[in-house]
Structure formats: structure tokens, C-alpha cells
């Protein structure tokens, strides 16, 4: 967690012998990783930035220079803003449930509670499911007639909607799967944070007795900030990249109800083959994720981060 504050450069070990290994060994060891990252991440990133200023459908031999027009048309396109809005709703809802719930459960399961290991296992279990598999299971549960959810609602004399077919409920359904899938992971993250607390401080701030909330905020919470920020960064990355469950459950529909930014990029790129527009959207997407992550790291430093 001390990553940002103290990145690198502790002067390495100076070998007392030849200078040779110092020159070449590090680069040889770095080479496979750097080659892979350069070919499949860094170079493509430059390519996407370049392509975002062109018009190209992949089939014509060369991209044609298009200036800022992709960005202009993107920023004036309601579709793009809708996709952005859906990404925002999706991320905020998932984070809004998963972070407090994950923390709450972790807190409880950090107490000397009977069967807490069984609970931990149960909550973590969905995380090992492929998202596509979870998506399909939830499609079955949410089937408009005969799906378990609507059958249960029927017992309560509530007519359940066509969850995945409704523009109002489809995104909610996708959010529900995501929460189900990842809750256990965040619980585990927070558990790890809680277990790294200074035991004496943790004891002092146990839930029992008066003033425990104040003690929690004053003593425990600052220690948990790095964990919380890490969880926040993870949840942003995970939710912003969501694709698999949307692909199997709704394919971005109905209408565009579940078209998130990533899905929008996929559609523009691989459905309409509008490479310029997809690339411009990708650049904005990376910038957005980058800015949010940066704010989170900054926030950590500011609010008493770096515990080391």
C-alpha cells in the first residue's frame, strides 16, 4: 500500500565484482515482461491515441486523418453520455453497496463469532464463478415467467417485471449479479485490513461500551484508509471494465439500458467497426479511470494515508 508515496529507488545492492552483471542482468530479466507489456499494452495505447484522430472502418486500407472530429461528435452524442451515465450509475451502485457491506461483514466476521469461517467461505464462494456463468444463472433466476424471483414475488401477490427485458430493471439486474459476485472479495480485503490493525488499538476500540463510535473514527478508521482506498481503486477498475455479465445477460440492451462505456466501445469497434470513434471513446475512458484513481490515491495521502 505504500506504493505511491515511496515508489522506488532504494539504492540497490552494489556488487563488489565486475560491472558487467550490473549492466545486462537487470535488462535481461526485465526483457520478457517489458516486451509483453510493450507489445500488448503500451504500443496499443499509443495506437489508440493515434487512431482516435482518424476515421477508419478497418476495411479501407488506411485510416484517414479526422482531426478532433471523433471527440467532437462523441461529446455531442447522447449515446456516449448515456453510456457514461450507465457506467456511473453502475459503478456508484456497486461500490455503494459492496464497500459498506463488505466492510460490515468483515467487521462482524472479525469478531470471535461461531462458524465465522463457514460464513467467510459462503460469502467468498461466488467470486470463483466465471462472470458469464453467474450472468446465465441470474438470467434463469430472473426469467419473466417461471424464474425463481418472479415465482417468489407471485407468492407475495406482486407481479414481477421482465427484469432483463425492462429498460428500468435491466441495469439493476446486472448490478445485482456484480454485487453477488464480488461481495466476498471485498469482504476478504477488509478482513485483511482489520487483521493488520494494531491489536492494542483494536482492543481499545472494540464495539462494546460507550464512545466506541468515536474511538472507531479516531483510532481504527485512519488505519483502515489504505485498505479502503485500495478497495475503492479495485471497485472502480472492476466496475468500469464490466463486460462479461452484460454480454451474456442483456447484450447492452434493451434499447441501451445496459450499454456501459466499455460496451459502447465494443459496439462501436466490433459491431459498427467505427474505429476512430471507438478509439476516441477508449481514450476518454482511460483518462476517466486515471483521474478517478488519482483522486483516490491523493485522498488517501491527504486523509492520513500511508500508515508505514
Amino acid at each position, binding site marked *: *500500500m505504500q506504493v505511491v508515496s515511496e515508489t*522506488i529507488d532504494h539504492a540497490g545492492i552494489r556488487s563488489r565484482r565486475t560491472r558487467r552483471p550490473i549492466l545486462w542482468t*537487470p535488462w535481461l530479466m526485465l526483457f520478457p515482461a517489458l516486451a509483453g507489456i510493450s507489445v500488448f499494452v*503500451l504500443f496499443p495505447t499509443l495506437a*489508440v491515441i493515434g487512431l482516435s484522430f482518424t476515421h477508419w472502418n478497418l476495411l479501407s486500407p488506411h485510416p484517414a486523418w479526422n482531426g478532433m472530429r471523433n471527440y467532437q461528435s462523441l461529446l455531442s452524442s447522447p449515446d456516449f453520455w448515456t453510456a457514461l451515465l450507465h457506467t456511473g450509475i453502475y459503478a456508484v451502485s456497486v461500490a455503494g453497496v459492496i464497500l459498506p457491506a463488505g466492510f460490515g461483514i468483515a467487521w462482524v466476521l472479525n469478531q470471535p463469532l461461531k462458524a465465522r469461517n463457514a*460464513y467467510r467461505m459462503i*460469502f467468498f464462494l461466488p467470486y470463483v464463478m*466465471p462472470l458469464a456463468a453467474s450472468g446465465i444463472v441470474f438470467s434463469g433466476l430472473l426469467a419473466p*415467467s417461471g424464474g425463481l424471483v418472479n415465482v417468489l414475488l407471485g407468492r407475495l401477490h406482486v407481479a414481477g417485471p421482465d427484469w432483463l427485458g425492462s429498460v428500468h430493471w435491466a441495469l439493476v439486474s446486472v448490478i445485482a449479479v456484480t454485487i453477488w459476485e464480488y461481495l466476498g472479495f471485498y469482504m476478504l480485503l477488509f478482513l485483511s485490513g482489520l487483521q493488520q490493525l494494531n491489536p492494542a488499538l483494536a482492543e481499545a476500540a472494540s464495539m462494546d461500551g460507550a464512545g466506541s463510535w468515536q474511538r472507531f473514527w479516531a483510532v481504527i478508521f485512519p488505519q483502515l484508509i489504505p485498505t479502503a482506498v485500495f478497495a475503492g481503486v479495485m471497485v472502480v477498475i472492476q466496475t468500469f471494465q464490466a463486460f462479461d455479465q452484460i454480454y451474456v445477460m442483456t447484450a447492452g440492451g434493451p434499447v441501451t439500458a445496459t450499454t456501459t462505456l466499455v460496451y459502447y466501445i465494443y459496439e462501436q469497434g466490433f459491431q459498427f467497426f467505427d474505429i476512430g470513434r471507438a478509439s476516441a471513446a477508449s481514450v476518454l475512458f482511460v483518462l476517466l479511470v486515471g483521474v478517478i484513481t488519482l483522486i483516490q490515491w491523493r485522498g488517501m495521502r491527504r486523509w492520513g494515508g500511508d500508515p508505514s
Partner: protein
Amino acid sequence: MRKRRSLWVWHLPLALFSLFMLVPLWWMVVAAFDPMRALLGGHLALWPVQWKLSNFAAAWKSQPFGRYYFNSIVTTIAIVTLQIATSTLAAYALVFLPFRGKRAVWALVLLAMMIPIQAIFIPDYLILSQLNWINTYQALILPFAASAFGIFWLHQAFRNVPRALVEAMVIDGASPWSVLWHLVLPNTRPAIMTLAVLNTVFHYGYLFWPLLVTNTAAFRVLPLGLSYFVAQQSGFMQWNLMMAAVLMTVAPMMALFGLAQRYLRAGVMHYGLRG
């Protein structure tokens, strides 16, 4: 004592939450064994009308699931192995070896970590098609053979290896390889295992990338095979066959979870953040 007893209160919400987590899994199992009719009857399908194994046979036959298993397992193992090998080497160099340009390399790693593949899949696809690798194992594996996150993760873990020990070994004339193998790796096993398990879960379940770079059943992996199974039923879903297929897909991960949960818990919990 009073404190212990009051903890009992938590069992009710925890049990309810557990129910929320387990019902989808339980429904999956029930549906996988159920004859179709029972699911459509509109009754509360929490217990199958009969335990029918034939769903699994029918699902297995309807798609080349044997091939999917093979592809999933081969690509997952290859990705995880390669990624750990490349990340270990790179992280070692970054943590223990002095060289010019270290800051720049580290900056590149952090930059790469910020770029999701969903943003750069178009050039990646074009690179693979230039190499004539579309619809091959290379296309499934090699883009993930190196990972900025893997380097980052192991970098954090390696930094906790006592520097004095490393220096002592170097002064005794040990090669970087020997330091890595005899000192660093044994000391960071939980972190490496955690990376391996998290990666396995992620790549075994990954749909997006295989969807882009494969064209034929011969190279599809399990999650993609599932999505084709859904599509092939074109809306007239036979949920029992579907869930049998899902259960077959999920089973290896559940088994792995059973085996590796010790590592996962220990790893994520003790190493995940401190690293």
C-alpha cells in the same frame, strides 16, 4: 462474557445474507438435475422433481465441452505460469538490482497497470491478426504472458524480503538467479500463490478476450462456450441443460477453491495489501 453472548445477534443477518449468496448456487444445482417441465411449471423450484443425470450427458453432447475444458485449462495454466515467470524476473530486477532508468521502467509499469485491455483491444486484435494468430492458442495466451499488475504485486512482496539477507548472499558471490531461487521465492510464496490463484480465477472465467480472438469451437474456452450454448438455444432456453453446462464449467473452480482457499485467505489477508 457479556460481549460474547451479544455476538449471537449477528447470526440472523449473517444467515439471511448467506441465503442471498447461496440461493443462486442452489438453484443452479437444482435446475441442472431437473427435468425441464418442472422449471416452467411456475412452482417454487427449490428441489428437483427428480434427480436427472441425463441433463449433463445432453449438455456435454450439445457442445464440444471436452475441447472447451482442454482449452480453458491449457490457456489458464499457460497464462498463469508465464505471467508469474515474467513478473518474478522483472520484479526482482526492479527491487534488487541497480540500473539506470529504473524510475522510467517503474513508471511504465504503473502506466500499463492503468490501461484496461477493454480500451486497447482494437490495436491488440490488429497486432494478432498481423501475426496471423487469430483463432490460435497464442492469441488466447500471449497478450497476458506479461502483466503490469503481476510485476506490481510481486514488487510489493519482494520489498519485504530482508535486504541484509540479500546483500549477504550477493557478497558471498551468489548470482541473482540463485538469490531469487533460494531466498526471494521461498520467502514470498504466499504472495506468489495468491497471485496465481487470483489469476487462475480471472483467466479461467474470462469471456471478453476469447470472444474477440477465437472463431471456431476448436479454440473456444468454457465461458465462451457457455455463451454460445445460450445463443444456440435462441431464446427457447432449456434451463436444465444450461445449468448442467454452467455447473460443469464452475466445478473445477469450486474444486480449486476447496483446495486453495487456505492460500487465498492467508494470501489475500496477510499479503494482499502489505505485500
